[in-house]
C-alpha cells in the first residue's frame, strides 16, 4: 500500500471520488489533494530544501489545471527535472490524446490514467503495477 499519495486537480468533486476509491481499494493510507499546480510546485520546492516529512510517494496530476500558471505536464517536468524528487508520477485526465501522452513521457510521466465515471478498475490495475513504477522498471502505460 502507498503511504502518502498526492492528487493535483482543479475539480473538488474528483478529490472526494479519488479519496474514496483509493481508500476502498486499499491503495493509500493518506491523500493530499491540491487544486493548483503552483501549490504543488511550492511544496516540491520546500521538499527540495531537505524537509521530506510529508513528501508523497506518488503523485497524480490532472492535465489541464484551471487557475494554474502551468499545466500538468509542465508540473511533472518541473518535479522530475528541477525539484529532483524521485516520486512515482503520472497524469490522470479525461483526455486521451497521443500527442499529449508523448509530451508527458518526455516530461518523465510514468503512467496516464483516463478519468471516467468508473475509475476504480483503472486504479486497481495501477495498484498492481505500482511496484514496477517505484523501481522504475515498468514502462509508460495508459490505463483506458
Amino acid at each position, binding site marked *: 500500500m502507498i503511504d502518502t499519495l498526492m492528487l493535483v486537480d482543479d475539480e473538488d468533486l474528483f478529490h472526494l471520488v479519488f479519496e474514496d476509491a483509493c481508500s*476502498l481499494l486499499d491503495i493509500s493510507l493518506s491523500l493530499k489533494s491540491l487544486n493548483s499546480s503552483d501549490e504543488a510546485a511550492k511544496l516540491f520546492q520546500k521538499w527540495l530544501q531537505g524537509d521530506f516529512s510529508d513528501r508523497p510517494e506518488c503523485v497524480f496530476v490532472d492535465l489541464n489545471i484551471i487557475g494554474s500558471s502551468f499545466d500538468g505536464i509542465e508540473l511533472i517536468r518541473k518535479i522530475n527535472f528541477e525539484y529532483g524528487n524521485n516520486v512515482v508520477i503520472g497524469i490522470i485526465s479525461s483526455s486521451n490524446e497521443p500527442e499529449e501522452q508523448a509530451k508527458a513521457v518526455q516530461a518523465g510521466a510514468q503512467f496516464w490514467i483516463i478519468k471516467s*465515471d468508473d475509475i476504480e478498475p483503472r486504479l486497481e490495475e495501477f495498484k498492481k503495477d505500482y511496484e514496477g513504477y517505484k523501481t522504475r522498471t515498468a514502462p509508460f502505460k495508459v490505463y483506458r
Partner: protein
Amino acid sequence: MKLNKETKEELINLLEKKNIGLEGNILKIIDTSDDSDFAKYVENCKEKDKETRKKRLEITKQVQEKNKELLEVNAENQRIMSELQLTFKEVEDAKITFEVQNRELIAWKQDNERISLELQQEMAKSELARIGAEEAKTMAINDLDVLQKKTQTELIGNIVKIALGVIISIGVITTFMYILALVINKDTQMIGSTWSNMLGILLTNAFSIIGTIMGVKYSGKDKEG
C-alpha cells in the same frame, strides 16, 4: 499501531452502546494480532467504513455527473446567449441599414416631389408661353389679314384712280377733239358718234369696275363676319 486494553474495551463499548466506531484509514494501521475481540471490532468498523465510503462515492459520482451536465447546459446556454447576442446585433445593424435606406428614400422622394413641382411649374410656364404664342400667332394672322386687306384696298384704290384717270383722260381728250372739230368747222358726224359711243362705253366700264370693286370688298367683309 498498538492500543492498550482499556482503550480497546472503551472503543468496543462505544460501538455496542452508542454505535460509534472508528473509521477511515486509521483502521488499516491498528495492530489487532493479539486480541481477537478487538480484531472483530476493527473488521466490523472497516466494513461499516467501506459501506459508508461506497455510498459516498456513488453519491459523489452522481453529483459529479450532474455537475458535468450542468456545466454542459451552462456552456450550451452561453452558446445560445452569444448566438442571440449576435442575432440581436445583426438585427440592430439591419435596423440601422434600414433607417439609412429609409432616410435616403425619403430624401429621394423629397427630391422627386421638388422636381415634380418644378416640372409642373415649367409646364405651366410652357402652357402660358404656348397660349402667348397662340395669341401672337392670331395677332400676326390678323395683322397680316389687315395688311393684306389694306394692300388690297390700296391696290383697288389705285386701280380705281388709274381707271378713272384713264376714263376721264380719254373723255377729256375725245371731248377736246370734238370741241376742236366744232370750232374749226370740221365734219363732226364721225367724231360725235365716236365721242358718244366712247363716253357710253367708258361710263359703262367705269361703273362696271366700281361695281366689281364694291362686290369684292363686301364679299371679304362677309367672310370675316
